[in-house]
């Protein structure tokens, strides 16, 4: 399999070449174009019940797609995320990585998409009740709206909620209210995330929540 991220950080997309018998797993609706004889299979995102739970509480799709080359020769496939932004690739060698809802784009065979309970505080922060923990051996592509910043942290670091994209599993996320409880819960603002531990955190420079909260007051009442 050959895969190349194109389109610069602003409009990244992933060009994939699948050899005979190879499969790539992608987020739902990620395909923008492909050779007509590739096969597409839709699967529940982590089993039926977790799939349902993640759809309704985690803000993820119910299904993920598997594209397989069942013919002879190499076939092309182009994948993209719904929002413009950067895409990055990480190689997993038996280790794991946590992704926030919506960050997953694609992975090779050998990568497990695990669902982990993220807790009610995460739900309150509108980051979903569940989080995705990917593990195994293979390549993983993920992305977000905006560019991606990587930070190696050791100790504590504070990130605005809805700007976290992914983090090493050794890192714990703790939500804290920047303002009072009332404004944090009902205003949807004033929440920041305190990340604690040692490892890598990936941050997105923009957020859809930030964009919509900029647009919302502009609608006529």
């Amino acid at each position, binding site marked *: 399999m050959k895969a190349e991220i194109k389109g610069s950080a602003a409009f990244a997309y992933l060009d994939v070449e699948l050899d005979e018998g190879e499969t790539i797993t992608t987020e739902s609706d990620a*395909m923008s174009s492909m050779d007509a004889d590739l096969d597409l299979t839709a699967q529940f995102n982590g089993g039926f019940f977790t799939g349902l739970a993640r759809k309704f509480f985690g803000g993820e799709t119910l299904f993920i797609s598997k594209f397989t080359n069942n013919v002879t020769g190499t076939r092309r496939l182009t994948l*993209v995320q719904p929002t413009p932004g950067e895409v990055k690739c990480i190689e997993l060698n038996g280790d794991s990585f946590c992704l926030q809802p919506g960050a997953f784009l694609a992975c090779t065979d050998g990568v497990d998409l695990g669902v982990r309970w993220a807790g009610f505080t995460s739900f309150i922060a509108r980051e979903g009740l569940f989080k995705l923990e990917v593990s195994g051996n293979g390549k993983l592509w993920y992305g977000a709206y905006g560019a991606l910043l990587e930070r190696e942290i050791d100790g504590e670091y504070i990130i605005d909620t809805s700007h976290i994209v992914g983090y090493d599993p050794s890192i714990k996320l703790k939500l804290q209210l920047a303002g009072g409880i009332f404004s944090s819960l009902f205003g949807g603002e004033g929440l920041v995330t305190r990340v604690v531990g040692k490892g890598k955190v990936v941050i997105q420079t923009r957020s859809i929540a930030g964009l919509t909260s900029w647009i*919302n007051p502009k609608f006529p009442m």
Partner: protein
Amino acid sequence: MKIELLHRPGNTAAKVTLNQGEVITAESGAMIAMSGDMDITTTTHKKKSGGFLKALKRMVAGESLFLNHFEPKGVSGEVIFGTALAGDMMTLNLDNESLIVQGSSFLACQEEIDIDLGWQGFKSIFSGESMFWVNLKGRGEVIVSSFGAIYPIDVDGEMIVDSGHIVAFNETLDFTITKAGKSWLHSFLGGEGLVCKFQGKGTVWCQSHNPNSFGSSLTSGLRARRA
């Protein structure tokens, strides 16, 4: 006529320099700046316009497309065109051939090119998606725009493109509306739904990002209007 694409690929604008007697035709609302002595005429169609009723019908169908024709009054002039969504642009040179452009990707073309807005193609099947198509025929330069990057695909055989990612394609290509992969069920469950299958020999230009997907990732965060 000289066409320059500025600030590619993120925030592209097209600067068109016109000599006396040269006319460029653009989609309504595309002009962001121009010389002071430019003549603008607005029509609903280039030729055989079919009159007001036909334009009204198109408008009701949600596909109003007015065209502005820019012509310098003096010796020369310039017009700069832009789009609402961030992304790239591309010029294509038509040599007595025909190009199908997705309505929201059509930006401008030389006046000599015939613009057919009534090309129904596979419009009816995409009901729900406000999609219409422009058929450009003739000789001259065309400017198309995209949401995100533009990548060409040379089709020789069969190729599938998700409907929201099509910018333009050669009319030499045949197309059918179909499923992605072998099974209708999996195509829908996999979120792809109906896709376009191109057959034959020719080029399809795709936009890396789908405006509708971006739109629906916004809507969950938008507040309903209290009207």
